[in-house]
Structure formats: C-alpha cells, structure tokens
C-alpha cells in the first residue's frame, strides 16, 4: 500500500514538473491569448479582493491584539507597530493570502478545467483550431502568477491598517505616529521578498490547479476529486515553498 502511494506521489510530481515545462514552452509560442488572459486576471484578482482584504484586516488585528500583552510584560510595547508589521509583511500576509487563494482560485480552476475535460470542451477547442493548453492553462497560470503578488501588496496594506486598529483598542496612537513607527523598521527589502514569494505561490497554485483539472478522469466524480486535490496539493506546495524561502533567507540574509 505504501509503495502504491509512493509511486502515485512520484508519478504526480513528475507529471506536474512536465506540465510546468510545457507551460514555459507554450508561453513563448505565437498567438498569445490576451483577451482570455485579461479575463482570468479579472477572475483571479478582482473576485479575490474582498476575501483577501477581510482576511488581512482580521489577521493584522488579531496578531496585534495577541502580541500586545506579551510586549507589555517586557516593556517593549512601543515596538509593537514595527514588530507586528514586519511579521505581517514578511511572512503572515504572503502565506495566508496564498492559502486563501489556493482555496478559492485553486478549487475554481480545478473544477472548471475538470468539467471542461469530462464534457469534451477541451477536445472541442482543439477541433476548433485552438491550442487548449495555451488558451486555458497558460492564461490561468500567468494570471495567478501576476495577481497573487498584487493581492499580497493589497493584503499587506490592509493588514497594517488592521494592526493600527488593534493598537488603538488599548492605546491611543495617532495614525501618523503608527506609520512612523512601522516604516522606521519596515523597508523595501521586507516588501520585495514577500512579492517574490507571491510570484512563486501564484505560479505553483496555477500550475497545480490546471494540472489537476486538465487531467481529470472518471466523469463528474473526477471533477470533485480534481477540485479537492487542487486545493490540498496547492496548500502543501505553498508551505514547502515557504520553507525553502526561509532556508534561502538564512543563506543569503535577504528574504
């Protein structure tokens, strides 16, 4: 049983790798599906704004409220805005945004492509003279890759506002003072790595979800499985990338 699971894991990993290689090959071939790409950017970006914003606001608020008592104990509560903002921008917002998007976008792409596969819509596209990989996969993966960093930047901003609200629950700190304290410690080298991580998160979520949807089998039952495994594998991959990023950060002291 274990060997079957291991074989399946290796088979799937190799499949996703080859799928990603094909993505880069198709990406540079002519006829870029610009309209579909814009449509996917709207779907991935615009429709995730509310979810990402609410999640980021709550996260900023909660982290600040929970950190405040501990920092008061050590008499370092004046550091609260800068400590919380660095935690949020460097780690928490990118990961939580990626996990939120893995759930929302990953399941959506997996189910959409899966149902297109089982209802022969992908075959129909091919017969209509369209390269379905370019039309469906390249556009979606590019959209997730480009939109996730933007969502992370939005999440960073809103989470900082959440932190400001959190600080003001027990203290009276002006917005001007709060931002001064935040940006005294937080600089571009904190934001850039989270954006770079966002590119990798977005690419990974897009590739895995498209792979799962594109290779759906066994009718409608398979569509459900594809949507489910898109989310599960994407979440696992997000954590793996975050772990690797942390190791790289240790080596280069930048991320």
């Amino acid at each position, binding site marked *: 049983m274990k060997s079957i699971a291991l074989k399946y894991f290796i088979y799937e990993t190799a499949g996703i790798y080859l799928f990603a290689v094909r993505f880069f090959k198709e990406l540079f071939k002519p006829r870029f599906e610009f309209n579909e790409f814009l449509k996917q950017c709207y779907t991935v970006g615009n429709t995730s704004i509310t979810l990402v914003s609410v999640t980021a606001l709550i996260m900023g608020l909660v982290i600040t409220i929970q950190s405040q008592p501990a920092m008061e104990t050590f008499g370092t509560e004046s550091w609260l805005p800068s400590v919380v903002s660095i935690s949020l921008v460097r780690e928490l917002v990118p990961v939580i945004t990626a996990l939120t998007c893995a759930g929302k976008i990953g399941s959506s792409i997996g189910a*959409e492509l899966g*149902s*297109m596969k089982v*209802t*022969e*819509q992908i*075959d*129909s*596209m*091919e*017969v*209509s*003279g*369209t390269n379905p990989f370019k039309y469906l996969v390249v556009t979606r993966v590019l959209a997730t890759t480009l939109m996730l960093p933007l969502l992370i930047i939005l999440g960073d901003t809103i989470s900082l506002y959440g932190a400001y609200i959190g600080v003001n629950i027990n203290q009276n700190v002006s917005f001007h003072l709060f931002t001064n304290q935040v940006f005294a410690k937080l600089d571009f080298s904190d934001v850039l790595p989270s954006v770079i991580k966002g590119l990798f998160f977005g690419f990974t979520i897009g590739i895995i979800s498209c792979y799962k949807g594109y290779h759906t089998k066994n009718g409608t039952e398979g569509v459900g499985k594809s949507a489910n495994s898109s989310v599960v594998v994407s979440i696992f991959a997000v954590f793996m990338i975050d772990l690797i990023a942390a190791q790289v950060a240790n080596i280069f002291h930048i991320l």
Partner: protein
Amino acid sequence: MMEKASYNKEAIIELINLKKSFGNNHVLNDLNLTVKQGENVVFIGKSGSGKSVLIKCIIGLIKPDSGIISVFGNDVSKLSHDDLDQMRAKVGFLFQSNALYDSMTIRENLEFPLRRHWLKGTKDTINDLVLDALTNVGLADTIDMKPSELSGGMKKRVALARTLILKPEIILYDEPTSGLDPVTGKEISNLIVEIQKKYNTSSIIISHDLSCAKITSNKIVILIDGTCYATGTFEELNNMSDTKVKQFFD
C-alpha cells in the same frame, strides 16, 4: 461487404488497416473504410466497440497505433500542427456531450471557431454568419443565452450550428440523438439529412439509434471486434440472416 454499386464518387475519407489499442484492449483492428463525397455513413456497434475512438482518430484527437487515415488525400497522422488545423477547418465534429462552452453565450460559442479559423472577418460579417447558422437550426432567438438555459435538444441544435458555421465539407457526428426523446431525435436526424443536401457534406455518424441510422444513412457499417463486420444499406443489413448483424436490428 454489400456496398451499393451505384456509388461512383470521389473518396474523401479513407481508412487503411487502422489499428488502435488501449493496453490489451484492441479497439480498432485492421479497419478499412472509404467515405465518398456527399455520402452519409452510419457506424453501429456495441458500447466500447471503438466507434468514438474511430472518429477521434479521423479528426486527429487520438493517434492510431498504425494504419493510414486519409482525409482530403492527406495522411492525418503525418500532418503538421498548422496543416492539421487547416484540415480541421474543413471537418466539423459534433460531440456526444455537445461540448458547448459553459462560460460563453451562444453567440460567443458560435464565434469561437470563426475567430480561430477566419480571423479576417469583420464584426458584422461574423454576426451575420452566427445568426445565419442559428437560423438554420431554428434557434436564432437563443443567441444571447447561456448553454445552461437551453434544453438537451436545443443544445444539440446549437452544437450542430457551431459545427456548421465553418461550412465543413465533412461532418463527424458522435451519437447525435443520444439523450434525446424520439421526436427530438427524429428532428435532429432530419436536420442531418437537410444539411447533407444543402451543403453536399460527407458525414460519419456514430449512433445506437436505429431510426436515426435509417433516416440519415446512405451506408451503414457494423463495427464488431474493431473491424467493419458488415456494410450495406439499412434494408440490406436488416434482411441479412447473420446473427451478429441481426442482433442490432431485432
């Protein structure tokens, strides 16, 4: 086996010693067939006998293990991607599940192959072609609807309109009447004959529906064990004493 002697038209599709297997399942086994200009050939066979695989091989969606598929005199398996696209512009394919794009309106569904194969058309010309294709199947008023708003029969008609919009010379129908009530099934069958007469198309029709086969066919091929077991008109096959053939007509 019992092909009508009156056929004396140009061969438009030719299958020679076609073989296709999935693992140990030999779906197509040395299959030979010729379809001539203006001819409707209906394939009958048990489920899983390789009928859908056969037409997917013809359109280049599945590669055969061996053999030759000649469409308009070109070997499909040797065509480059661009040549295959050009060939596909002249071959319509009606999918069993209709394969209408759920996220698009009926107008966008019909525009999709046009924009792919015929990019030079102006907006008005494309609009006229879409309306004309929908009028041909009696569904011009559904142009701004989504596929989910249509009944099974209407979806089939729209799928047929999308197949016809590029004015194909060959149409491949994968079970055009499956899932439809007998009345709608008969309407679709009559529509297939109308299309054949109007556009002088050649067709391969995969069907389990004998009434569809009777209405639409010039020739029926019975597919058993991956080969053309018997060929003839509906009446010829219906009168055969062979038990394997008889089981389809009883």
